[in-house]
């Protein structure tokens, strides 16, 4: 119901849904705290472990996603952002920044164990991570910023409707840029994954680290 605040429904349904959304803060805080305390002291390992990089990014995005979900469901905010790009940003945060990134991380862990080879290029993993991270970060920022401006213009009856569209268009171009970054990252991953499927991964007892030299000196993980 978050997206339908003030829609044609009995008000109690919307109010109950908003209250429920706010209550989701309890499990979200629990999960976030759990993740954070688990990672505490181990954050430097993100320099080496591909899996950790992706999953920590995903776990943090989950908290951001949930907090934004609560914010945009509040009536006063929703009246501005209801029909703007903000809801798209919210969806992307949940589906990509949280879910997809976590699954990427899991694949970096699972696939070597399934095919019996290690990932071939640490550099490709790095490239994949940064292209995805910057891509989804840029996309979310663009959609959030553009969406808030669009919503503010929509709620300003002094401005013609077309103004709200023209406001958001530059942000949508920025979003296209982010989309290109994501596409690049997907192709990199697909290529790397293909190599693994073809059995072209490294035969090694040591997993592929991102910064192998540093990993060795610090004892690896």
């Amino acid at each position, binding site marked *: 119901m978050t997206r339908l605040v003030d829609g044609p429904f009995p008000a109690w349904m919307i109010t109950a849904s908003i209250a429920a959304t706010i209550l989701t803060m309890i499990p979200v805080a629990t999960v976030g705290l759990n993740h954070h305390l688990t990672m505490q002291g181990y954050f430097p390992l993100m320099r080496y472990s591909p899996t950790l990089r992706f999953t920590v990014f995903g776990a943090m995005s989950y908290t951001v996603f949930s907090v934004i979900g609560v914010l945009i469901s509040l009536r006063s905010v929703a009246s501005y952002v209801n029909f703007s790009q903000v809801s798209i940003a919210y969806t992307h945060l949940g589906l990509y920044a949280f879910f997809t990134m976590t699954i990427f991380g899991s694949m970096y862990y699972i696939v070597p164990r399934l095919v019996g080879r290690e990932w071939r290029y640490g550099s490709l993993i790095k490239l994949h991570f940064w292209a995805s991270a910057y891509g989804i970060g840029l996309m979310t920022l663009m959609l959030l910023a553009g969406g808030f401006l669009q919503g503010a213009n929509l*709620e300003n009856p002094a401005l013609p409707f077309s103004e709200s569209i023209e406001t958001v268009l530059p942000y949508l171009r920025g979003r296209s840029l982010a989309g290109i970054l994501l596409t690049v990252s997907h192709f990199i991953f697909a290529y790397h994954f293909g190599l693994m499927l073809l059995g072209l991964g490294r035969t090694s007892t040591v997993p592929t680290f991102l910064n192998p030299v540093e990993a060795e000196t610090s004892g690896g993980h």
Partner: protein
Amino acid sequence: MKGLAPLFLGIFGTFAFSWIGLTVIPTWQIGHLNPESDEEGTDIYPRPQSGMFARGEHVYAANGCVYCHSQQVRADYIADDIERKWGNRRSAPRDYIFERPVFLGKMRMGQDLANIGARAPAPEESPAPAGAASPAAQGAAVSSSPAEASRERRLRRPSTATSPAATVPAGAACLAISTPRTDGEHYSERSSPAAPSAQTPGAPWPIQTAGLPPMYSAAWHHVHLYAPRSINPDSNMPAYRFLYEKRRIAGERSAEALQLSRSDAPPAGWEVVPTYDAKCVVAYLMGLNQSHPLKEVRSVGGAPATARAPAPAAQGASPAPAAAGSPAAPKK
């Protein structure tokens, strides 16, 4: 395992609770709404729509219109939907009882369409709509066949707008919606800067660029669907040309042929005519109309201040106070 029963019961209870709250009670409250009528049992709203409307709904879905257009008007104390002339009252569950699925929408990269049909000009002035409405049906206050209902509804409402609105209080509530000039101002502003300001209520239709059909008429919708940029140069709507057929004129030019201008116009000897799907989607758009008052929702005179004066008289048709808990009385 110890504590398995409480765990299971807890999970079951949680889901049962939300199922009751989000499914059972809403179904019980608004799942079986019926159309409303006045004391004599006439003036029924909403009415079942025509077959073309139903098919148009599918075309609307197939072309993803819902991704950019919403169909819901929010209350005046929440948002400025009504001030934007997207409706003269907020949408209520009852408005949608004959629509499956309901395209509420969650994006406004295009205008809200909940009342797009209500903005159509009076039928006398519009060229024969593709929905094949005949002006003869206008007098009929009650039409029995569902097929006729949408037509009749479409025709009845603009007829209040044709009369000089300022002197007809009854029309005031509908006025906001029947005089779409301010709503479409960015269109007229851009395409014809010289056009007079559209603020005068009851001004004769159309205020529009020469060479284009009256705004929001069926013919206008066809031109807009075929070539959005020919009407508003900045429009970001895709052109739905595949809903139209370009063909050689055989004998006489078809009455349905689109009045296209400049680069969109077909070469001499050719014409662009709507396919059946195009006619249906326009019939659907013309049928979207929530301007009829509902008892549970307050209709506001969203019209400009000048037209506001006679509004109280018009409110007789739509009693303002609504029972607590009904959609009209949300606790803010």
